Every structure is written in structure tokens, then in C-alpha cells.
């Protein structure tokens, strides 16, 4: 115990010595600047109500669960789909859509429907004439229900087989967004 006391005293002594000699600055808060908190997929039909699918996760990766809102679409209808991405953790909210438009060559969205009878086609392209996917056409078939998955790949290989027609299999790159919405066609 004598040993313990001695060490304790020495430790405090050194601590005081060092505390005086070097400044211990408080850390600076670093927000995740590149976080995408909000994704909305706005579907405008040729006639009828606009449908908005959304994914909201304001506190980033950890913490509270994200809020995911699916939608009900009309069967046998054509929609124009517009994606919007934001980082709402910053004030004012930062538009990620603009960043992706600027770097269109290095990004591509992929849409995969499961169960729901619908197809998605690209309605925009990058400078090389390859698809991007911020603007799409969505065509629904007969009444059904299922899901639609939206994936954003960073640095995919756009020249790999099937990638230009929206097949993700050979795309590679890194996933920046991967969200799934429940969809009902009626």
C-alpha cells in the first residue's frame, strides 16, 4: 500500500507538471459532412396524385432508426420520377443532388422492383451519354404489391455488361445509398 501511495503522488506530480507545460485544447466537433440524411423519390403521374417515397435519418448512422415512407401507385400508369438527396444535419440543408449532378460520370442509380409489377427506365445521362438516374420514368403494370430498391453506386464501372440498362450485377464501385420502399399498385 505504501507503494500505491508513492505512485499516486508521483503520478499527480507528473500530471500537474505536464498539465502546465502543454495545453490540452478541447476538441472541435466534426459533423459528418457527407452524410445523406434525406432521400425523396417524387413520382408524378400523367394524371392523378403525386406520390412521394422518402427515407429520413436525421441523426446519421447511429441513434434513432430511419423513417421510411412507401407509397401507393396507380396500376398501368406512367410516372416521371425525380430523386432528391439532402444533408439536413447541416443548417441550411445541403443539396447532395447537386454534387451528384456535378460528378455524374462517377455515379449511377439502380432501381430494382421485387413483387411489384413495374419497370424503371433512365431519363437522364452523364457527359459520356451513360445513364445517371436522378430522373427516371416509372411504368406500372397490373395491380400487385412488393418493394422497390434504390441504390446509388459511387465509381461504378459504367461500361460493364448490363450496367447501362440498369443491371447492378457487374457495376462494382461503392454503395452510397441503398434504401427499400414498400410499394402497392392498385
Amino acid at each position, binding site marked *: 500500500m505504501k*507503494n*500505491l501511495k*508513492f*505512485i*499516486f503522488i*508521483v*503520478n499527480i506530480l*507528473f*500530471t500537474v507538471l*505536464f498539465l502546465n507545460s*502543454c495545453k*490540452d*485544447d*478541447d*476538441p*472541435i*466537433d*466534426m*459533423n*459528418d*459532412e*457527407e*452524410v*445523406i*440524411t434525406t*432521400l425523396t423519390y417524387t413520382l408524378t403521374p400523367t394524371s392523378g396524385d403525386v406520390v412521394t417515397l422518402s*427515407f429520413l*435519418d436525421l*441523426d*446519421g*448512422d*447511429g*441513434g*434513432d*432508426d*430511419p423513417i421510411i415512407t412507401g407509397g401507393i401507385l396507380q396500376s398501368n400508369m406512367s410516372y416521371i420520377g425525380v430523386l432528391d438527396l439532402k444533408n439536413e444535419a447541416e443548417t441550411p440543408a445541403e443539396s447532395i443532388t447537386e*454534387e*451528384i449532378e*456535378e*460528378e455524374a460520370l462517377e455515379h449511377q442509380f439502380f432501381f430494382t422492383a421485387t413483387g411489384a409489377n413495374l419497370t424503371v427506365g433512365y431519363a437522364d445521362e452523364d457527359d459520356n451519354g451513360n445513364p445517371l438516374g436522378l430522373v427516371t420514368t416509372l411504368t406500372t403494370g397490373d395491380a400487385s404489391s412488393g418493394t422497390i430498391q434504390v*441504390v446509388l*453506386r*459511387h*465509381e461504378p*464501372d459504367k461500361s460493364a455488361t448490363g450496367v447501362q440498362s440498369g443491371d447492378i450485377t457487374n457495376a*462494382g*464501385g*461503392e*454503395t*452510397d*445509398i*441503398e*434504401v427499400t420502399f414498400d410499394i402497392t399498385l392498385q
Partner: protein
Amino acid sequence: MMKIKFFFLSVLFFPQFLLAQSCNLTLTGIVLDKGTNIPLEYSTIFLKNLGQGTVSDKHGFFEIKNICAGEYHIQASHVGCHSEEYFIKLEQDTLFKIYLSHHSELLDEVVIHGSHEDNSTESSQTISRGAITEEGNKNLSDILGNISGVSVLRNGSGISKPVVHGLFGNRVAILNNGIAQSGQQWGSDHAPEIDPFVADHLSVVKGASALAYGGNSLGSVVLVETDNIQEDPHLHGEVNYTLQSNGWGHTLNSTIEKNGSWAAWRITGTLKRQGDNRTSNYFLTNTGKKENNLALQIEKQFHPKWKTDFYYSLFNTKIGILRGSHIGNLTDLETAIGRSEPFAIEDNFSYSIAAPKQQVTHHLVKMETKYLMDDEKIIKFKYGGQLNNREEFDIRRGEARTRPSLSLSLFSHHAEAAYNGLVGEKIFLKAGIQFDMVDNGNNPGTGVSPLIPNYRSYQTSTYWIVQNDQADKWLFEFGGRFSLKQLTVKRFTQSPPRELEIIGHLFQNYALSTGLRWEKNDFFKTNFNIGYLLRAPEVNELYSFGLHQGVSGIEEGNRNMDVEKSLKALLSVDFRIQNKFFVQALGYFQNVQDYIFLEPQKEFRLTIRGAFPVFLYKQTNANITGLDLLLKYEPKQNLNFILKYALVRGNDLTNDIGLINIPSDNILSSMTYTFKDGGKWKNNFLTINGRYVFQQTRIEESQDFLSPPDDYFLIGLQVGTNFEWQESSLKVSLRAENLMNTTYRDYLNRLRYFADENGINVSLNLNYRF
């Protein structure tokens, strides 16, 4: 007057007159093997400035007669040894003991130093300078992997760390010149920042408890050590160059040293450039590497009893990480695992390094002053300061592209006072007090919330070890260590509103250890060690929070983590039969209560980028048992066979499953044949080696994303020769690794999910000494 004139004349015309008296000196000596004390017959002892030499007899004995007083460079060489050079001032008949490492794989730390203060009951194994320079193009950890019981944990071929007795990272302390390496030890993607060329030898102490060493070891310690600068007043040095075919890597190193009139100094510089590695089938795009290292060593003897040395080293590296191994989420990982070759592989070789990459700079300053009192009593003061800057770059969007995602600066200070000496007649005491301070800061501007918070810690430790030596046969050792660690963490709360949070911890750690060494004779030696020690959890284990980009998982620490309590026992036996058959066997058992590990969770964390695997730091009770075996058979002095076998078993006792990242069994064998010397070409040798690594079968499917890869067998070949001139020598060797260009993956490489290991690599190594 006449007499004086005559004297001057005679000196002028017959200078030998003055020296005649001292030109009948005799230099006698004995040449012994360093590791085993076996006399080395047919060793060549050569006085370089005279061009005169002799050969030792079967007792290792030699004699050179009728030489004048003066300064000599003596070169000693023997079949299968790296030749050694000595400098002596001959003033009278002299008896000279020469140690060569004929059995270099049998060397240990105690033998190397040979002094009382380094005596120990702990087992250790050593790699000497010659072997380091031969493989200097590799990382420190890869060179250490030649020691039985040491495996290498990798993240691609550029990043590796040693695994000793199944433990790595925070649990294996690495001492660079006596100072515990203080880098970001927590990630499996962080390698120790040390240039192997700075070392004269590398040792692994396979201990039960590291009492005298700083650092946070759970038993084993890696020592990177430089020897004292030779007493030679002339400039000497060496130049090493290696060209390797895989990655077209160039390694250039130069070391020069001199015992100058003011002080002795040595400078070491190393440059490495390497491009994309290649597996047997494709290039591993973006796996290049750049390294620039520098070290300066100064030794000053103020007084015969007072010696001071100064050491500075700079390590600077830039390492590319395989593009295809950088993944976004779980889906990406699953897609990557299913592929025959990784994404983003290019057909062309390149030296360029793009993101993902790491840039690390490490500075070390060390000062040590030693005062020798009477009767081998020594007082030492040591200071070591380190600065580690680490930047990791990911693939990012927009202007963030050029900014690092992780940028850490770690300052550390270590101060120590130690005393070694006899107490009374029989007891040798080693005692010391150490103070450590560590300050880790996240540099602002990354735009990524940090995985590891800012922290500062102060630690004060004392240790004492008593040793009792009985008739040079028994050595008994008992010791203890106590430390007090104070840790302050500053971080922002995770959920909004984000507020600064300051948390303090206080850890009391102690260690107790006892050991016994019995040397029956030169033919039989045994060591037994048992130790109990506590290890305080590190900051990553307590406070990690977020995405660990390098390994694509969300990692979360637990601030209520308890200290790890380890009990380890080791028994080693060294013996030899007729100087032909050598055995080193070491068995160990370690029980760790509250063993900290990263547990993969069943649920995934859903984010906008998809699902991520979650790893939580948890505690369990674990047992680690193992065996290291080294067998050497030398039927003739110029032919030997070596077999190394290592076995480790790790069990999580609470969950009744195997521990992850435990090396599988492996066998390393080699045969070396030394041909007859041909003129100036000496020590012409040929080595064939094979490495067989078993599949790791003690892991359940649920413990990993992918079951461990298959077993593999690799063949290597090396040929070499020495060309010797009067003042210098050149060693040339050619080495082929993975000669059959085998396609394989290794369980301890994180890249096993994505890509194969390197294919064939042929390297040419030149070592010029002057």
C-alpha cells in the same frame, strides 16, 4: 649530444628499430558459435590491413604470431555464417574471443547481449542483421514471421502486424530502441511504423509477463534493437539494394558509422518504392507503396563510467489499399466475396497510389544516459518522445476528395529511471520507475465524425525483479510491477444536441511473475515462467463509435469495460545431440479473464447506405494454448535442415467457440547447402524452403462473413554468394518466393474476402559492406 644524434639517425634510417620490440606479438583466440558455444572449426581469421590470416583448428582455436603493435581490422568467417568484423588495438599478446552465428536461428536475446542486466528466465528468439538486410524490402512484421510462433496479420501485403502466441495489436508491445512504439495500434489495418533496417537484431520475447518493458503487453514483447557503434575510428558502413519482381519494388538503404573523436555516430537511410502487386492471375490495382526513413544514432562517452546516447528516427510511408476492397455496405461485401477477381482491377501495372490510401509519419527521439557504478551496478535514465501522424483517405465526393477521412496526431512521452546491480552477494536486482503520457487528437477538417475520441493518459509504473544465480546453472527470478493509469476522454455526445463530454478513468494494474532457468550444460537448457498480469482496456475498446472505414464495419466500444486479467505459463526446453541435432520446444498456456474482443452482432444497422455489420467490444473468458517447435539437423557443417512448427488454439470459454484471428497450424522447413569457396567467392549457398499452412477449422460459420480459406503450400528458393576484397565485401543473393505461382488466400489477411495473395516474387539483393 652525440648519443642523441645517433638515436635520431637510427630512427630516420631504421624505423623498425623503434618498433622491433613490439613486432613479436601473438594474437590467439577461439571462435565459437554465438547461440550454442560450439567451437567452430575451419573458421578463417583474417587481418585485413596485413593481408595475413589463419584457420581455426577443431577446438576453434587460432594463433597468429609475429605481428606488430597497432590497430587491426579482423575479419572472421565460417561456412554458413555472416562474416563478422572486429577492430582491435594490439598492444600486447592478446587472447581474443570471436563469436559467429553459425546457428543463427538458435540465438536468443540473452546470448546476444551477454551482460548481467539482460539476463532473464524468459524465452526469446532473435533475427540477426544479415537476415534483416536480406529481407529488408519487406515490412518489419513479415521479417518477424520467420520466428516460430510468430504469424502475421495483414491488410494486403503493404500493411502487416505481428501475431505472437495468438495475440496482436495492443496486446503485443513493440519496443523500438527500448521505447514502446506508440502508434494507432488498434486497427488491424495499422502496421507498426518501424523501418527494419534500423535494427541490428530483432527479438521476440515469448514471456509470461513483461515487467521491465513499458507498453501494454499481455506477455510477449517484440524488440527492435541497435547495437553499440563499433570502436573503430574509421568510417564504415553498408549499402543495401533490393529489386523485387512482384510490384517492381526498389529498396535502397545505406548505413554509415564512425567512432569519431568527439562521439560515435551512425546514420541509416532507407528509400522504398513499389508498384501494384500481382497475384498469380491479376494485378492488385492500387497496392503500391512509398517509404522514406531516416535514423541517427550518437553515442558519447563522457567518462569511462558514464555513457550517453541519442537516437532519432523518422518513418514516413504512403500505402495504397486495394481499390476493390473498399466497400460501401454489407451488400457490397457479399457481392465482392462472390467474385473470382476483385472489382476495379486494371490490366496495367502502375506505381501510382490513389485513394483509398494511408499516409503515416512517425518521429522518435530517445535519450539515454547510463552511469556504471562499482560491481556492475548501473543507473540509467531514459527519455523517449514520439509523434505519430496518421492520415487515411477514402473515396469521397466533391471537394472532400482530397481531404483525409481520418487524421490523428498522437504525442507520447516516456521517462524512466532504472537501477541494476547486486544486492549482497547473490541477489541481482533490477528496478525502475516509469512515467508515460499519451495525447491523442483528431485533427479538424476531415468532415467525418471520429471513430476514436481525443484523449490523454498519464501512467506511472514501478517494477522490480530479483534474480538469484546458482553456480551458473540455475537462475531464479521473481518480480512485480505496479502501475496507475489515468485516462481522460473528450468527445461529443452522439445524439443531438451534440455536447462536449469529459470522462475520466483510473486504472490500477499490477503484474507478478516468477521464472526458473536451468542450464545443465551446453547441451541442455530449460526455462519455466509463470506470470499474472492486468491490462487496462485501451481507448478503442472503451470509446470506438462509428464506421471503421478500413474494415467497413460499425464498431462500438463499451466504457464500462473491465481490465483484462491474464495468467500465463510457459515451459521451454532446448537441447542438442552430438552437435548435429538441435531442438527448441516451447509450450504455453494462457487464461485471460475478461478478454476483450470485437463481437459481430446478428443484427445489421440500417443506414441510408444500406445495412452495415455491427461489431461490439465485448468481454469473455478465453484460453490460449500453443506449441512452438524448432528442429535443426546438421549432418555436415555445410548442410542443414530446419523445421519449424507452430500450433495455437484459442477458445472463448463463455460462448464455447473458437477465438477469431487465431493463426492456423503452420510448418516452415528449409534445407541449406553451402558449396566450396571458389577463389574470392565465398559462402556460396543454396536454400530451398517450403511453407505449409493448414486451414483454420476451429471457427464457426456464424463468426465470419466467409469461412476460412483452404490450406496452402508454398515453395521458395534462395542462392547467394559473397565476394570479398581487401577492404570491403559484396553479398549477392537471389530469392524466389511462391516459386510455383500458387493461387491461395490466407486466413490472417483481411483481403481474403476480396483477392488472392501475391503470386511469384523474385528478388535480387545486394549487400555491400565497407
